[in-house]
């Protein structure tokens, strides 16, 4: 498991190939890092700029947060790499169970 195929330390893996792979990896990380900062700025702006109602701002920021989590998981925690099937399966099933709970609590419980 884990990202063993990346830094396997296996001398048979072509060093050129690995260098290229790492460079590509790096580019992805920098791009997504920039994007994440940009999204954070937008979130702040949404609150700072007058004229939006809370009914827009709250879901909007939540949406941005979801995007950020996805960036975090896929670009910084390497979930897109092979060998992460089990973690992603558990992540998504956990998410499903959690969201069903939230849905139920917000619809059928009389507050």
């Amino acid at each position, binding site marked *: 498991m884990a990202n063993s195929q990346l830094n396997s330390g296996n001398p048979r893996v072509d060093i050129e190939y690995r260098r290229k792979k790492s460079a590509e990896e790096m580019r992805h990380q920098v791009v997504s890092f920039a994007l994440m900062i940009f999204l954070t700025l937008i979130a702040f702006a949404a609150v700072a700029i007058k004229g939006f109602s809370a009914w827009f701002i709250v879901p909007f920021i939540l949406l941005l947060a979801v995007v950020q989590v996805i960036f975090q998981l896929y670009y910084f925690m390497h979930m897109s790499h092979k060998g992460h099937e*089990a973690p992603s399966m558990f992540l998504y099933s956990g998410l499903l169970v959690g969201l069903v*709970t939230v849905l*139920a609590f917000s619809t059928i419980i009389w507050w």
Partner: protein
Amino acid sequence: MSTYAQKKGFGATIWDYLTTVDHKKIAILYLIAGGLFFVVGGLEAVFIRIQLAVPNNDFVSAGLFNEIITMHGTTMIFLAAMPLVFAFMNAVMPLQIGARDVAFPFVNALGFWLFFFGGVFLNLSWFFDGAPDAGWTSYASLAMASKGHGVDFYVLGLQISGLGTLIGGINFLVTIINMRAPGMTYMRMPLFTWTTFVTSALILFAFPPLTVGLVLMMFDRMFGSNFFVTTMGGNTVIWEHLFWIFGHPEVYILILPAFGIFSEIFPIFSRKRLFGYSSMVFATVLIGFLGFMVWAHHMFTTGLGPVANAIFAVATMAIGVPTGIKIFNWLLTIWGGSVKFTTPMHWALAFIPSFLAGGVTGVMLAAAAADYQYHDTYFVVAHFHYVIVGGVVFAIFAGTHLYWPKMFGTMLSETLGKITFWLFFIGFHMTFFIQHFLGLWGMPRRVFTYLPGQGFETSNLISSIGAAFMSLAVIVLLYNIIMTSVKNVKVGNDPWGDGRTLEWSLPSPPPFYNFKQLPLVRGLDAYWLEKMDGKKGMTPAEPLGDIHMPNSSILPFVIAFGLFVAAFGALFNMDDKAWSVPVLIIGLLITFGAMFLRSVKDDHGFHIHKEELIDDEDKGVKA
């Protein structure tokens, strides 16, 4: 490091078990502790049936009756059924996937001791002004009004033992994902391993809601918060949701390992491959998922509204489909097989119609409109005892007979085993079948007595006589266990003669490192394949080498014990006892001190050297 072969004194054996991190010994601990709680819960059941045997009985008072039924349910679910299935998971799963131990042996021991101390704490409530009396579901509307400390014992005890279960489940998940032997792909895993896997995933997702619910109730009862206090704007229905979001998956946590055990028994004693292996795996996973979408079927009468009721009714009925797939697969496994009627096979064959009856009443209950009639009557009691006893308890009995040789190296008597079976089988149906009708005639559940002339007398008496049969069955089993241990006739690797999976390729009981060389798995039913090719044992997948093993440790015991002490402090703090805060602090210090010790002290374990492994061979210890 070959001390394991020497004869030990009594004290040394106790110390060995207190400090063990070996999954096979932890399995035995689970079996003993679970068995003990099973007997306690069984005694409580007998008291219930004595009280209800005749109308207007005063064997116990109404208040004591409530305590007994609460402790019966809580003990049986959390302290008997759960640890007993954990016993088999620990004993068998690592062997089935060809591993030398679970992924985190230390955590495995910690999980056991947390469960054990949580259970002891809960049962000590009998000696401190009263056990919990709000039902095993501990609905907040009742629990908040309960006097004395009973409910606090429930909350703290379950919190501690729940923690143990949770880390146990995580441990199994990591083990199955990471520690399978070479060639053991997911689709070659024996079905018991599969059900252990799905069960552990259910534990992972189901126990946190219970933890949250228990924390809220703890704050309400001990620190004056108002989550469930309606007069202060709280809502008791939240507890019901949290409890059942945990509670329904919990019943599948119990039944899936039972399915797993039976899925091992049918092929072994029909001497035929399990029919529809991949559909069995699929059904197991599907049941796991659906198990989370149906909890509100326990709350149809709470007033969720027709839309919610309809959705949950349909989702609940949908679970019948994968369950049906399994039933047909088992039947088709037996079909045309050369069946051997051993004791485990008796339980397995009796399981099918018994569990089926429970499933049918389940679907009846799932019809929301009809449930208004059934809810809180003996019909529900009959339903869940048919699935839990006819499913889980039958599986535990079957597993005990099937795996006893693997765990202890001796064979339980088949004759006594069959006597146990028949007594229990007759007693079980006698006790619970009639309860369907009691429910339909209008006898509510959880009442401490009933009046003469309501038409309940004969049926209740029959039900109580059935309970006596089941008690006899358990006594015969205990006698069987004692006689077998006294005679101590050792058996070989594959005592049933038809073992299919890896555990039967090992000596009974296996050496503490399980596999001298990890086996190469060439397909489903790995050991059977080798036997069919005329080989004696598994082909090794690695050369003989040093084996790395973890050291024993007393720390898991100490960590759990600290929480046990702290729980007393927290509980009596409500009475403004001066000593409660120091006790709480001392308990937490013990726990965190032990955890600190564990973190700073490097423990690299030890190696069994190649030469010693070869020595073992000469002495006749096979691997």
